[in-house]
């Protein structure tokens, strides 16, 4: 591609600003008249690759390391001036730091009553910070990924000895006593307690419950790897213990994607012996759904329905009626055509759920998520039915998570919608804390101005009427895109769009949503 303008890089050695602040400066630069393209990023290999692909990397920038910042600008003329403006913006950020503590020790000395800390520094720096905090009896929410597994195990064991909770590493979401940590939606309070080694799974279930009028006591995200066999569900069990003792919690759900069988056995054994409240599992990606008599449902939608049944059968029935009504409307409005599905996700658990449903429909799926029924792919590939998780570690080194900055995912969605062989594109649009205020506007930009491809776009909007982004939702509804009530229903919608098989979709509804013979 022919690129115009002049490119200038400047490397700031050993300067650190968090990836979200850098994204905000990048966005401000890009809107300046005369700037053709710009990026202010840390010099990780991934970021340098993206700069190179965008034609924004010079020899100067090539020399940046992961602890340096790169300011890269392509401008019509005088790129150096814009680089200088970016530097000034970075200096401005430093001046806003007044009032912040210089160390964890200083902060705790002034605030000895702190019981909870949220950590979101790059993964390789988590261990030292987390150990200090655990020694001071502080519970942790660790958003950071790229934390070595052995560090996770060590931190969780140390915390357990002190009766503490370590949510994470790689915890996307928790709602503790009404306070949302990481990515969380504004949901009503109520009797449902959740434990999840998943962020988007918790967001999906809590928002679907909220839509049914049901509330939650706590939603405890224990980190994506807690139910791997090496970790053994240490914090899943700890969270279950807390929910068993919590007077507000009446019914409990455990959610996970691709858990290890021995970790699952430990959790099941604990539930049998110690938990006296109803517990419903949704363990996606497990070879067998048999948990020795405990309830294990196949989708997050089925879980929300089962939790509703435990509270009030009529609420569950109303939701089922709504789902049936939606599927009827799909049959009336979508254009069925033989072609491909491209499912592009910010939430990994939602991606996993969609893989399972596409596979159940007999479709051959390729994904960057390891899954027993998906072939692996490199994310740039574009052949066959694809499910891509943009929150996977290969996309987040030195970059904000796609819930914060969905631009990479949205760009891909826009490309896929314009391919004639692609008949259905699924995306998750995740609202709530951490998500951009103009979330819906950004989603609409995927469609561009040449409207007809909106009918190929299936959206699962993960949000509640109380999330601040939701006030723009009517604009998305008017765009012509299909807004599915849950993620599993989004997947079934896509399956119908490319097969037109009513019988197949009804069969999947029975087995994966309504859950026959429960």
């Amino acid at each position: 591609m022919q690129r115009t303008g002049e490119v200038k890089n400047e490397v700031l050695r050993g300067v650190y600003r968090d990836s979200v602040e850098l994204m905000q400066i990048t966005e401000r630069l890009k809107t300046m008249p005369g700037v053709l393209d710009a990026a202010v990023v840390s010099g990780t290999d991934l970021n340098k690759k993206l700069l190179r692909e965008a034609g924004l990397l010079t020899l100067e920038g090539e020399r940046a390391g992961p602890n340096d910042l790169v300011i890269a600008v392509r401008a019509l003329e005088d790129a150096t001036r814009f680089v200088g403006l970016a530097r000034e913006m970075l200096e401005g950020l430093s001046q806003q730091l007044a009032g912040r503590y210089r160390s964890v020790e200083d902060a705790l000395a002034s605030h000895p009553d702190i019981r909870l800390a949220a950590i979101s520094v790059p993964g390789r720096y988590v261990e030292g910070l987390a150990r200090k905090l655990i020694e001071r009896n502080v519970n942790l929410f660790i958003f950071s990924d790229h934390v070595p597994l052995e560090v996770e195990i060590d931190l969780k064991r140390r915390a357990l000895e002190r009766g503490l909770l370590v949510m994470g590493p790689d915890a996307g979401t928790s709602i503790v006593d009404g306070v949302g940590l990481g990515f969380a939606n504004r949901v009503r309070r109520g009797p449902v307690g959740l434990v999840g080694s998943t962020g988007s799974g918790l967001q999906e279930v809590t928002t679907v419950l909220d839509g049914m009028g049901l509330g939650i006591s706590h939603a405890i995200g224990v980190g994506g790897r807690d139910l791997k066999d090496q970790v053994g569900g240490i914090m899943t069990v700890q969270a279950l213990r807390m929910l068993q003792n919590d007077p507000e919690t009446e019914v409990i759900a455990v959610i996970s994607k691709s858990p290890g069988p021995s970790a699952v056995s430990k959790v099941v054994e604990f539930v049998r012996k110690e938990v006296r409240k109803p517990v419903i599992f949704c363990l996606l990606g497990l070879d067998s759904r048999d948990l020795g008599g405990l309830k294990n449902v196949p989708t997050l939608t089925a879980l929300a329905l089962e939790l509703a049944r435990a509270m009030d059968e009529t609420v569950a029935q109303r939701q089922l009626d709504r789902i049936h009504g939606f599927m009827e409307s799909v049959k009336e409005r979508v254009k069925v055509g033989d072609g491909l599905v491209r499912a592009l996700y910010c939430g990994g658990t939602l991606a996993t759920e969609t893989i399972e449903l596409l596979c159940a429909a007999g479709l051959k799926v390729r994904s960057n998520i390891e899954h027993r029924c998906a072939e692996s792919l490199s994310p740039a590939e574009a052949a066959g039915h694809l499910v891509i998780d943009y929150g996977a570690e290969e996309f987040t080194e030195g970059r904000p998570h796609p819930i914060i900055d969905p631009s990479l995912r949205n760009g891909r969605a826009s490309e896929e919608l314009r391919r004639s062989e692609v008949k259905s594109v699924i995306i998750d649009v995740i609202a709530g804390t951490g998500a951009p205020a103009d979330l819906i506007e950004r989603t609409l930009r995927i469609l561009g101005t040449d409207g007809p491809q909106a009918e190929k776009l299936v959206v699962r909007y993960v949000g509640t009427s109380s999330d601040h982004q939701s006030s723009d939702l009517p604009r998305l509804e008017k765009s012509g895109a299909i807004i599915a009530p849950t993620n599993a229903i989004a997947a079934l919608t896509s399956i119908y769009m490319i097969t037109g098989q009513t019988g197949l979709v009804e069969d999947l509804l029975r087995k994966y949503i309504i859950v026959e013979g429960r």
Partner: protein
Amino acid sequence: MIRMESRKVLNVGLRLFAEELRRQGVEVVEVDWSPPPEIEEDLKDILDKLL
């Protein structure tokens, strides 16, 4: 269970999360974190050869 009566959270890392907590009425205690300085790669190479 963790009770949030004090509604106070220590935030180390993304400022965005501190802002989101404040928006929920939580008192946020922030640490100005930056990575510890690292020895330059080439200096490390020299040290490796010497040791």
